[in-house]
């Protein structure tokens, strides 16, 4: 998408587009433009609506994943909803590994990201009026240096008896959904074999995997900056993950996201076991 490679040049177009769609006016900050979008032009009681917080970042700057890695801080959202609406957990797209130096690695997003937030609309919610939604968003944005930024984003969505998708937002929401990690396919097995200094994460689809990268969901378990040694096996691959120096207690499950060469990514919850003698 040339637009996002040189987003400055197409920013006016993006702004115009979002004015026409289900979203409030984008808010420019020093190094980003942020907007609150709705997948639906109309939302309905007894359903789950999908909102998105869209970050368009100045070239070279990044924001953070839910586990930011060695430094940084994930965006934080504080919602104000009318009665009947409640926000679920943020759905985080697969991040990029941002290695600033040999000893430090972070996880985050560059250029553009849509963070999805499902919103439950209770069945008793009154229809006929518009739901006024306000989001206080705070995030840390970094290039070499880091700056805290914030914005107040407002959105008004009519509550009707049936929900209606916004066709002008379909592409953006669909591409965000594609960037989310999927549940591990049926039949795939994962296990993390614990050694003194490493976990060996074994993945068995069961077919050989050439390339794989693991993003830890929890901080302080693996060494973020250490090179992940990937060894293809007949049934999949094994990844050597160096333990974090901060890991002093045993863990039962190694959680994270496994990203593969074909662009697919899966949620991994690998039970940890001792090596077989």
């Amino acid at each position, binding site marked *: 998408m040339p637009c996002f490679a040189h987003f400055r040049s197409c920013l006016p177009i993006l702004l115009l587009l979002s004015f026409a769609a289900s979203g409030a006016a984008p808010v420019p900050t020093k190094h980003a433009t942020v907007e609150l979008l709705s997948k639906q032009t109309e939302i309905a009681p007894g359903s789950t609506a999908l909102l998105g917080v869209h970050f368009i970042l100045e070239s070279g700057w990044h924001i953070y994943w839910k586990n930011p890695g*060695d430094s940084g801080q994930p965006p934080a959202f504080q919602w104000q909803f009318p009665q009947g609406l409640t926000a679920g957990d943020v759905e985080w797209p697969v991040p990029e590994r941002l290695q600033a130096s040999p000893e430090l690695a972070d996880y985050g997003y560059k250029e553009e990201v849509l963070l999805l937030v499902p919103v439950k609309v209770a069945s008793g919610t009154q229809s006929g009026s518009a739901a006024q939604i306000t989001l206080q968003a705070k995030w*840390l944005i970094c290039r070499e240096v880091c700056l805290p930024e914030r914005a107040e984003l407002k959105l008004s969505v009519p509550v009707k008896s049936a929900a209606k998708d916004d066709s002008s937002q379909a592409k953006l929401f669909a591409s965000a959904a594609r960037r989310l990690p999927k549940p591990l396919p049926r039949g795939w097995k994962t296990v993390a074999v614990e050694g003194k200094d490493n976990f060996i994460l074994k993945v068995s689809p069961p077919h050989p995997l050439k390339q794989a990268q693991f993003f830890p969901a929890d901080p302080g378990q693996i060494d973020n900056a250490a090179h992940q040694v990937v060894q293809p096996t007949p049934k999949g691959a094994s990844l050597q993950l160096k333990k974090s120096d*901060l890991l*002093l207690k045993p863990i039962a499950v190694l959680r994270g996201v496994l990203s593969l060469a074909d662009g697919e990514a899966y949620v991994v919850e690998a039970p940890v076991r001792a090596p077989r003698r």
Partner: protein
Amino acid sequence: MFRVRNSLIALCSVIALVAAAFAVRVGEPAPGFSAVDSTGKTQRLSDYKGKYVVLEWHNQGCPFTQKHYESGNMQRLQKEWTAKGVVWLTVISSAPGKQGFVTPTQENDYLKKMNAVPTAVLMDPAGTLGHLYDAKTTPDMYIIDPAGNLIYEGAIDDKPTTDQADIASAKNYVNAALTEAIGGKLITDPATRPYGCSVKYGKF
């Protein structure tokens, strides 16, 4: 002139006495070091055997560091614990040209302006001490016990934000660890994930 002085500082300020051949881990001996402070005095970890030593990685341009200095939180900790005999060493590992790099004079002016009272500020522009301890963020905190063992490493508290308003409700890990250790108790949280800006190391 300035440049010559800076590179001299970069070259000589930190001489690691122990190579970083092993990872620094809580429960193990803290690696010894010798470093020049902002007053030009050489500080050795071995000088402080028998005392608790706190290491605080610092970058005055980092919003996470600013949270704890502009609120006076870090100065309060420095004052309270140094009054109880704890040695507090602030460490600056920003490389020349990077955010947080300061000359000794600039650092001494900053200390005065902020009413900061560490025992000393170690100038580490080559990043030797930072790499020795594997310091990742500013702030990143370490506590060494009187026997010379590392007893805490990680965050300053449990609210990884840049908001001063979060300090009041945060659990301060450094306070907790020092209180427990000095009281002869086990440290509840001996290792936590440090939060903040990345340490602005130069090319190695």
